[in-house]
C-alpha cells in the first residue's frame, strides 16, 4: 500500500498544485498550532494552581475553634470554644480514618529568639511529631520532633533553614542552644519546606514543652490531621464525625457554622482537580473544534480537486485503476498534506509556548506552559485521523467517478 511508486504519484500531483496544497496545509497547521497553544496554556494554568497546593498535604483536615453563634441546650451564643489536649486525644483515639494527627499551640506575644549575640523574631509552632506529614517538611540535618520529646517535655527545637542562616551564619546548629523568650532550647534538626521563605523561618517545638514552659496549660489552638487516601465523601464523613464529637464535648450545636471551622483539603483539592479536568476538557473541545475547521477546509479543497481531476481519474480508471487505488491516491494525499502541515503547526505551537514561558515569568496562576510527550503523540494521532477523515469523502467521490461520464467529450 505504501510503495514508493504510490508516493511518487502523490508527489507528482502535489508539485503540480503547489498553491492549493499550501493553502490546504496552512489551515491544518493553524488548527494544530491553536490546539497545542491551548493545551499548553491549560497545562500552565494547571501547574500554576498546583504550585499553590505544593506546601501542604492535599489529604488534610484542619480544625480551628471559633465562637458559638446559636443557643444550645440553654446556653447562650457567643461562647468561645477552647480546644485542649483532651480534644486531641478524643479525635486521635475516637475518629476512624485519621492517619496522622497533630495539634498546634501558639505562644502569645512577640517571640524573640536569641543565639549568642544575635536576636531575631520567628514564627514558633508547638506541635506533635506527626506535624511533619501535614506540612511538606523535609529534614536537611538532624531529626524532627519525636514522641519522647513530647513525653519528657524536652526543651528541643527544630529550625528552618532560614533560621539557621540568620542565627548561625554557617555554623553547625545541631546541639547548640537557642533562647526562646529567654528559655534555652537545644537544636536537634534543620528542615526545609518547599512552601517558600515564610515556611523556612519557622521553629518547631514539642507542644507539651511549650504548654508547660510558656503558660499554655492544656490549651490547643488547632488540630490538624491527614486522612490517608480517603475519597471526598469519606473525608466529609470523617469531618462530620469530628464535628459531632467536638460539639458534644463543648456543648454547641453541631450545625453551628461559627463554633468550629473545618477546612477539608481533600474537598478543596478535588474541586481543583475537577476544575482542571473541566479546563482541560474545554481546551480540547476548542482545540479540536479549530482543528475540525481545518479538516473541513482540507476536505473541501480536496473535493474541488477531485472535481477538477474527474477527467484524469476517468482516464486512470479506463487504464485499469481500481476504485480502491483511486481512493488510496486521494486519501494518501490528504493524510500526507495534513500530517506534514500539522507537524509544522506542532513545532510552531511548541515554539509559541516556549516564548510564552519566557515572557510570562511564573505568576501564581500560570507556570511552565508546555505540552508533554503524551499530548504530542495524541495530537499526531489526531492529525493522521484528521487527514484520513478529510480525505475520506473526496476519496469516495473520486472512487465513484464513472469513466464513461468522465471521458464524455463536450
Amino acid at each position, binding site marked *: 500500500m505504501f510503495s*514508493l*511508486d504510490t508516493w*511518487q*504519484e502523490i508527489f*507528482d*500531483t502535489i508539485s*503540480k498544485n503547489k498553491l492549493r496544497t499550501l493553502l490546504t496545509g496552512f489551515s491544518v497547521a493553524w488548527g494544530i498550532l491553536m490546539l497545542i497553544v491551548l493545551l499548553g496554556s491549560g497545562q500552565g494554568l494547571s501547574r500554576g494552581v498546583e504550585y499553590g497546593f505544593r506546601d501542604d498535604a492535599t489529604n488534610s483536615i484542619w480544625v480551628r475553634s471559633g465562637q458559638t453563634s446559636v443557643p444550645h441546650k440553654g446556653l447562650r451564643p457567643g461562647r468561645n470554644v477552647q480546644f485542649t489536649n483532651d480534644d486531641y486525644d478524643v479525635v486521635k483515639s475516637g475518629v476512624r480514618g485519621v492517619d496522622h494527627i497533630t495539634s498546634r499551640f501558639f505562644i502569645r506575644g512577640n517571640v524573640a529568639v536569641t543565639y549568642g549575640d544575635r536576636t531575631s523574631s520567628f514564627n514558633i509552632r508547638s506541635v506533635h511529631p506527626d506535624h511533619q506529614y501535614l506540612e511538606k517538611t523535609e529534614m536537611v540535618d538532624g531529626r524532627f520532633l519525636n514522641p519522647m520529646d513530647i513525653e519528657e517535655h524536652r526543651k528541643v527545637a527544630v529550625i528552618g533553614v532560614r533560621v539557621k542562616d540568620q542565627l548561625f551564619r554557617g555554623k553547625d546548629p545541631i546541639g547548640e542552644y537557642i533562647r526562646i523568650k529567654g528559655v534555652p532550647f537545644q537544636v536537634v534538626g534543620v528542615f526545609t519546606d518547599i512552601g517558600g521563605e515564610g515556611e523556612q523561618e519557622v521553629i518547631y517545638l514539642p507542644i507539651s514543652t511549650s504548654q508547660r514552659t510558656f503558660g499554655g496549660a492544656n490549651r490547643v489552638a488547632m488540630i490538624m490531621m491527614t486522612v490517608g487516601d480517603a475519597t471526598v465523601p469519606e473525608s466529609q464523613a470523617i469531618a462530620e464525625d469530628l464535628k459531632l464529637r467536638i460539639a458534644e464535648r463543648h456543648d454547641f450545636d453541631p450545625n453551628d457554622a461559627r463554633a468550629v471551622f473545618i477546612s477539608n483539603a481533600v474537598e478543596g483539592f478535588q474541586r481543583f482537580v475537577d476544575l482542571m479536568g473541566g479546563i482541560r476538557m474545554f481546551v480540547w473541545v476548542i482545540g479540536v473544534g479549530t482543528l475540525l475547521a481545518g479538516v473541513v477546509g482540507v476536505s473541501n479543497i480536496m473535493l474541488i480537486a477531485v472535481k477538477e481531476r474527474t*477527467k*484524469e481519474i*476517468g*482516464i*486512470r*480508471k*479506463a*487504464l*485499469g*485503476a*481500481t*476504485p*480502491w*487505488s483511486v481512493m488510496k491516491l486521494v486519501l494518501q494525499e490528504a493524510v500526507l498534506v495534513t500530517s506534514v502541515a500539522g507537524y509544522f503547526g506542532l513545532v510552531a505551537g511548541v515554539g509559541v509556548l516556549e516564548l510564552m514561558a519566557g515572557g510570562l515569568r511564573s505568576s501564581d496562576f500560570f507556570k511552565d506552559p508546555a505540552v508533554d510527550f503524551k499530548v504530542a503523540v495524541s495530537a499526531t494521532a489526531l492529525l493522521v485521523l484528521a487527514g484520513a477523515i478529510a480525505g475520506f469523502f473526496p476519496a469516495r467521490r473520486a472512487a465513484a467517478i*464513472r*469513466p*464513461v461520464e468522465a*471521458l464524455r*467529450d463536450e
Partner: protein
Amino acid sequence: MEVRSNPAPAMLSLRGIHKTYSVGANRLHVLKGIDLTIAPGELVSIMGASGSGKSTLLNVLGLLDNYDTGEYYLDGQLIKDLSETKSAVLRSQLLGFVFQSFNLIHFKTAVENVALPLYYQGVPRRERNRLAEEYLARVGLADRAGHLPRELSGGQQQRVAIARALIAKPKVILADEPTGALDSQTSIELMETLREINASGVTMLIVTHERDIAALTQRVIRLRDGRIEGDERNQPAQAPVPAPPALAEVSAGLS
C-alpha cells in the same frame, strides 16, 4: 474469405444486448438487442449517426458501462454484473483504449502517460519506463518522450495514446473516433499505424462516422437506432496492406 472458413473462437461476442438509460422521468432505450461476434485479429469499424448507440456499445464492450439484458463474452469470459474492481482488472489485462480527444494526463510527460497502464499492473518504475520508451519509438515518437501533451501536435498526442493503449499488450483495442480531432492527412497516417498494429494480431474496433476511415477496415458494422442495420466485409482490394517487416518484428518480439 478464406481466413473465415475455419473460424477461430470469438474474441467478443454479444447476444441480445439491451441497454436503457433513465434521463429524469424519461427512459431512453439506447441498445435494442445487439447480436455481434468478432473474431480474434479482426479490424472492425462501427458506423452510425450520433444517437445511434455506437458510443454506448463501445462503453459496454470496454467494460466502462454495464448492460441490462443479454450476454457479453470477452475472450471467453461472461461479462455480467462485474464489480468495479473486477472490471478494472479485466480492462487492465485485456483492453486498450484510444479516444477522440486523446485523453492524455496533462501534467505527465509522454513517456509517463504511456507507462501508466503498467503502473496499475504493478510493473516497477524502471521497467515500465523502459517499455514505454520502446512503445513510443514504435509509434515514431522516440524523440518526444520527455514532452508534455500540450507540447505535441494532435497527431502526435494520438500516437502517444496509441502507445499507451498498446503497452499492456491488450487483446482488443477499442478506438472511439480516433481520427475525429485530426486533419485528413494525419488521419490517414494514423489509420496506417492502427492497421499495422492490427496486423501484429491485436483485435481492433474503431467507432467512426467517416466513410474514408471505415473503408480502411476489414468489416463495417452499421448502427441505427440501437440496432445493427448492416454488417458487411470490405472487398479484398481494400483489405489492409501487410505490416512493414520491421514493425511486425518489434510486435512479435514484444508479445
